[in-house]
């Protein structure tokens, strides 16, 4: 069977280029992310840096490790998704070949073994390409991590010999797992299908599709319903995870939905338009295969970006409403002494390390600590804070326990065990993990802290005059401007992670689209030839194929928007529940960019493939009977 697998691959290589590329990219990403993850986890800060810097570096490394974890998971999910849908589609396009094998005495096991053999070869070849490519990807990823300041200059990924085994294993596993479902389905091909020129279209909405679709739809709905009740951090996390199951659900129902929506696309009347429309309807499977990666692309990129932007904006709004201050002064100048100032809360921020829990459950997390004057903090932020002696209060970041003892280490000294006696409400935009009273931290350790003062004016005070006076103590900003800038810096890491992950997802989805179109065209040569002997010119055939590609792309974009809509609803519900005002910012430039890229890629691929599929004179194709 392996011999036949090899012959099949050589003969129909155009069907497999896409699968090969996606295996190779999957292997490259898994290998690179894994190597970098280990390098980052074992990374030692260079000797001679201060303790504060060391804490920052290890904080960055922690963020890098979790980012790489997300990339690793994302790479496996997308590779699995693209590879299995590519295989499913190639198998579908080869039903006649497989039926023929059955006709001359091949059993179901033979069909399964043939496809598994192909997958095995593809997995090996994909890993062979992916391993050297992975080194390039690693250099790129390490560069991005240095540039985005997850890791200091001088950080590089380290090669490990055992990764060879992991990479080959990954390639084979991805390919073989990807083909399992398709092989099961293919084994049910009936021998008689070999005798029909165009076999009865295999049923597109299989029981498996219905079940998967309903399960993922249920998952998306559950996240949408629960997110508003998840509090700031839980709600955000859940809302950010709606797009994925929602898009998988829509993809599962794509064979039903795509033809329905493609019919509404304006592809024009005339004979070519109606030909394109008929093609979309007739080849539901092919249409769904092209639309599927687009659906995932739009849902993930637009849904998640909109969610991120909306939550940031909503967090800033929340802070604007809860912070009773007019100006923010950087530094620790004597802002309180300026005439016209009613209240000042000077807040000193320090990096730290918090340990909580006991024994096996002990956890050490990097944390940010804010040293405050409780009375002033209460007045400015509108929330009561009681801090006396050796106590701490859980801050708006909400990432340490709200009661119980914690151990706190700051640069330059261990503060020992502190009881957490209370908490301030968690904010959508996060913030400090712990609030400490001024007296607790030795003055020497505070020297390195960055300080800001929130300043509230007396009623009727002259804003301009006060501002001018404040400017002599340090740089002054309006509260709104400062909040926006602060949110942007704080979100920076998240945004960079999203950029890397979504960029990767987008790349994968585009490969998926190209795959589907190339496979579709490779098996359509005969259909094109028939159209030409019926009287269509080559140009008309190509134009009809292009119109069809546009109708399907349009449907994919609309359905992707539908899945992204699930995320939008979760965002609206969550921001409304957490901050009291529903908020949704849709990044229209990004939407425009995605639409443009999708149309360009599908258009170009369709043109190139149908052009090359119609290169030979139609008679030569119609005469060949294999």
């Amino acid at each position, binding site marked *: 069977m392996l011999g*036949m697998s090899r*012959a*099949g691959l*050589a*003969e*129909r290589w155009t069907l497999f280029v896409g699968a090969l590329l996606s295996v190779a990219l999957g292997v490259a990403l898994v290998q690179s992310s894994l190597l970098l993850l280990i390098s980052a986890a074992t990374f030692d800060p260079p000797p001679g840096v201060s303790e504060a810097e060391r804490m920052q570096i290890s904080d960055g490394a922690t963020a890098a490790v979790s980012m790489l974890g997300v990339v690793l998971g994302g790479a496996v999910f997308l590779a699995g998704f693209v590879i299995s849908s590519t295989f499913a589609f190639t198998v579908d396009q080869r039903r006649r*070949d497989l039926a*023929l*094998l*059955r*006709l*001359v*005495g*091949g*059993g*179901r096991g*033979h069909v399964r073994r043939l496809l598994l053999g192909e997958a095995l070869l593809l997995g090996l070849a994909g890993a062979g390409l992916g391993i050297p490519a992975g080194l390039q990807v690693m250099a790129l990823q390490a560069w991005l991590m240095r540039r985005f300041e997850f890791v200091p200059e001088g950080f590089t990924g380290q090669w490990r010999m055992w990764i060879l085994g992991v990479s080959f294993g990954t390639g084979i596993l991805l390919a073989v797992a990807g083909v399992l479902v398709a092989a099961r389905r293919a084994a049910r091909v*009936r*021998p*008689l299908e*070999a*005798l029909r*020129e165009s076999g009865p279209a295999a049923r597109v909405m299989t029981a498996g599709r219905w079940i998967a679709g309903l399960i993922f739809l249920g998952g998306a709905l559950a996240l949408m319903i629960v997110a508003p009740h998840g509090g700031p951090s839980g709600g955000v996390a859940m809302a950010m995870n709606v797009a994925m199951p929602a898009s998988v659900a829509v993809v599962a129902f794509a064979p039903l939905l795509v033809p329905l929506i493609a019919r509404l696309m304006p592809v024009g009347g005339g004979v070519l338009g109606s030909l394109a429309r008929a093609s979309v309807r007739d080849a539901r499977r092919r249409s769904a295969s092209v639309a599927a990666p687009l659906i995932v692309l739009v849902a993930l990129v637009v849904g998640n970006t909109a969610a991120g932007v909306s939550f940031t904006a909503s967090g800033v709004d929340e802070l604007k409403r809860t912070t009773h201050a007019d100006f923010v002064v950087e530094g620790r100048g004597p802002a309180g002494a300026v005439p016209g100032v009613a209240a000042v809360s000077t807040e000193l921020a320090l990096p730290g390390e918090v340990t909580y829990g006991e024994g096996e459950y002990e956890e050490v997390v990097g944390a940010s600590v804010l040293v405050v004057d409780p009375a002033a903090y209460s007045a400015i932020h509108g929330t009561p804070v009681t801090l006396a002696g050796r106590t701490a209060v859980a801050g708006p970041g909400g990432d340490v326990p709200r009661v119980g003892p914690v151990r706190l280490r700051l640069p330059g000294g261990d503060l020992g065990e502190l009881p957490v006696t209370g908490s301030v409400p968690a904010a959508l935009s996060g913030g400090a993990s712990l609030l400490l009273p001024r007296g607790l931290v030795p003055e020497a350790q505070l020297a390195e802290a960055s300080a800001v003062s929130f300043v509230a004016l007396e009623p009727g005070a002259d804003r301009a005059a006060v501002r001018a006076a404040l400017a002599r103590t340090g740089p002054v900003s309006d509260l709104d401007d400062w909040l926006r800038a602060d949110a942007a810096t704080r979100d920076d890491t998240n945004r960079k992670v999203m950029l890397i992950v979504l960029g990767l997802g987008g790349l994968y989805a585009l490969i998926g689209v190209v795959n589907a179109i190339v496979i579709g065209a490779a098996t359509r040569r005969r259909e094109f030839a028939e159209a030409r002997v019926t009287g269509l010119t080559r140009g008309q055939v190509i134009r009809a194929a292009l119109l069809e590609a546009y109708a399907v792309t349009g449907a994919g974009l609309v359905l992707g928007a539908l899945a992204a809509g699930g995320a939008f609803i979760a965002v609206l519900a969550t921001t409304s529940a957490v901050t009291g005002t529903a908020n949704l910012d849709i990044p229209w430039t990004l939407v425009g960019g995605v639409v443009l890229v999708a149309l360009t890629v599908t258009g170009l691929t369709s043109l190139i493939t149908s052009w090359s599929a119609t290169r030979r004179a139609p008679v030569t194709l119609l*005469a*060949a*009977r*294999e």
Partner: protein
Amino acid sequence: MLAVGTSGPLLHSVFLMTTTLTTTSNAISLYGVSRVFGRGAAAVHAVDDVTLEFPRGGWTAVMGPSGSGKSTLLHCAAGLEKVDSGRVLLGDADLTAASDAELTALRRTRIGFVFQSFNLIGALTAEQNVALPLRLAGQRPRRADVRATLDAVGLADRARHKPRELSGGQQQRVAIARAMVTRPEVLFADEPTGALDSTAARTVLDLMRAMADAGQSIVMVTHDPGAAARADSVVFLRDGRVVDMLAGATAHQVADRLAEWER
């Protein structure tokens, strides 16, 4: 009464005749076979209560107007299409009761197919196509055997060519070689000359005549009275029913009779 293929793990499967246990001299027998496509008002009785016996070692042609059910009858007789009622026997083995795995084993060992569109696997050479059924049966075919089979259809020098490098008549002869390599009890052919010109068709028919003379049972569907006249007997179908039979007729007689039934 125990009639199973010669090899493979499916030996335990036993095809029992449920009625008479007399060993028949028929290669294929159909008893009251019907096949209906669709249901309700749209139902098509493609094969309608057909009882037919194809003798062992004989070459039978099946003729009839387009849509009369010839292909469906052939598919039912070969176990490719399930029947709605009636029974199909290959020798003494009941095909209508056989499982998918059992039918697969039969296709590998006791049944051969040739079709109008030659249905070769494009990725494989002529030689590899011919060897395929043996390899699927788990054997390691000897190159000499495969070459001998190709030689029998006059294509020894084309063993390493792929189907697209062969003419239509050559492709059909490779398909026949592939069907014959397992030495099947019955060869089914659906319009084997339908896509060939008259010279290529004659080569293929000569080949089949020689095989029939050597004792091969053949069931062949054809539109061509000339081809049908090469067979030992001709069965006429219309609307899914057997309406007539001829034995040892000339092409003229076959054509006249066909014209009658097509009126």
